[in-house]
């Protein structure tokens, strides 16, 4: 069995779905953040697969960029969560209801 483009794409889709599910269903803000990272990485896999398939190097370069940005984003996101946690003593996203009616 040779590994083709479609295998990568299926893997990316599965990872994206797992990430999406986690982002929407989980209560823990840190898990949500992690799931968002999974979705980003699913996209990265798809991007690298496509880049290889059409044989352009730009896709792989972009992936590096995305990983850098994602790392920065995680740093900011974790900082926010820690700040909220200090205020609210919880990481349960459903408890973050200050703006709710």
């Amino acid at each position, binding site marked *: 069995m040779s590994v083709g483009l479609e295998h990568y794409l299926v893997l990316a889709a599965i990872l994206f779905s797992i990430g999406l599910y986690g982002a*929407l269903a989980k209560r823990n803000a840190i898990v949500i953040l992690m799931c968002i990272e999974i979705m980003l990485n699913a996209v990265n896999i798809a991007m690298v697969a496509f880049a290889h398939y059409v044989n352009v190097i730009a896709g792989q370069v972009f992936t590096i960029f995305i990983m850098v940005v994602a790392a920065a984003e995680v740093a900011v996101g974790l900082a926010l969560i820690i700040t909220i946690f200090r205020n609210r003593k919880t990481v349960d*996203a459903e408890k973050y209801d200050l703006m*709710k009616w």
Partner: protein
Amino acid sequence: MPNAAIISIILLPICSFLIISLVLRPFFNHRPKLSAYTTITAIAGSLILSLWALASVSGAEHHVLTNVSYHWLSIGDTVIELGFTMDSLAAIMVVTVSTISLLVQIYSLGYMKGDGGYARYFAFMSLFTGSMLGLVMANNLLFLFLFWEGVGLCSYLLIGFWFHKPSAARAAMKAFFVTRLGDFGFLVAVIFLYAKTGTFNIGELHEAALAGTLGGTALTVAAIGIFSGACGKSGQFPLHTWLPDAMEGPTPVSALIHAATMVTAGVYLVARMFPVFASSDTAIMVVAAIGGFTAIFAASMGLVAHDVKRVLAYSTISQLGYMMLGLGAVGMGYASGHLDEHTAMSLGVAVAIFHLFTHAFFKALLFLGSGSASHATGTFDMMKMGGLRKAQPITYATFVIGSLSLAGIWPLAGFWSKEGILHEAYHYVPVLFWVAMITVFMTAFYMFRAVFLTFHGTYRGGEADNHGHSHGLHESPKVMIIPLIVLATLAVVAGWLPVGNFLGAHTHFSFFGVLSGWMAWVSILFGVAGIALAYLIYVRKWLSADSIRASLGPVHTTLIRKYFIDELYERFIVMRVLINGLFVILQWIDTHIVDGVVNGVAAVTIRTGGVIRRLETGQLQVYGLAIAIGILAIIACVFIFS
């Protein structure tokens, strides 16, 4: 005669009003005579122009000097014009109005002397005269309606001139409301006619009515609507109740507005719209019936009134009924086919307007005469007057002339015009002819009752004035006497003028020839009988007024309480039907249905919002889930439908 001169007839008094109210009253109120002279000058100018117009009209083709319309405003395709006409009818009316107005203003110089509202009085009088002149010259119903409301407004302002008296304020309000009731019908009719024919122009409406393009029920409805306006203005039954109360105004106001001019506007309106009325059998019958009934009905109330001005007010209502009867009788002659169109149209206008013309002079005279008597005695109550004959010989003489003229004694003015109406009534509505005849008797009786109570016998003390001492009897100043003499002269000779012929109908009886017919003798006989009865009761005292009153107790009560119509209107219709009935229902509808709808919509919105806002959890994950489901749905759709 240029059009500018014709329009000046209206503009002069209006300018006088503006000058007095904007310049003289604010800045020169310490010299009130200025406003009187301004008014008199302006109205004298109008009179001269009116006479010029009259002379020009008699030389003009078909007696129509001018009939111009100016563009006023347009709304989409609807063009509203305003315009003037100067035909024989308008010419007679402007001359009558400006003559009486001028004499009344001169009289007011004396009568209103020392009154605090001198300038205000003359300002309103100018405005009134201007509006009245405009009313009779308008050639278009909408424009006529403007002036119609203008005279109504002035009437209100002048009845309530002494507004610090509660009775005057009340009377003004009553006059305004009651006439408004009629005016509503008029306005509806004007709009209805416009919707049917697309024009406000009176001439075009005449053509439409005579040609039959406007006919049947629509025409009847419109005519009755117009007549309800005329009823309100002219105090015809059942809208007559305001006119006797209107006597709260100053006497010159009663003379000018509530005897000679404004109240005749209703008759003028019916005369002006006569082809419209005559083309509808029902409408013209209503006019004749209401006119005839009002004539006798009002006269009967005049028999017992104690206040000389109220006697005259009932007399005015009664005489206006006569004029309506004259119009109605000729119209019925036309409706029944006895008269051809051309004759009928001018004849109806001629008999009514001729009576309006003569009536204006002798009734203004009588009012001014009663004002002169009150000037000396301080009261209008005849029971407190008496014996003024010696102290006020000129007032007495002129008052008697006026009364004889009103009673229709040959050869005074009233005789000729009344004869015209009786003549037509006899031919076309015999029943109302006899009603009118009885009214002649009653008219003569109540007028001479007034004469004898006021001027004969011994003086019964009058009423102490504000300073607490009673008046020494004296003749009124010259400025009041001269208008009386002029009016008395006119009350004699006005009937000899060929007004009927001028209006295009051959109605003029020859000076002695009229006596060859039986009708003249019968009507004179009825008049003389009325005078004789009054003489026997109030001078000779052969019959005691008290014993007659006692033997006719219920009748007398009914008459003096004005047939309980005021009670009916105020206690029953206003209090029971409106305030305690209709208004309660309307209030219920307002609070429960109108407010209920508004509050209900608000409540439903709040409740729905309360339910819907629960969807807005504020949880980003829920929104994200919604977005994800939405995207999946879109993708599914793309796969299914592409």
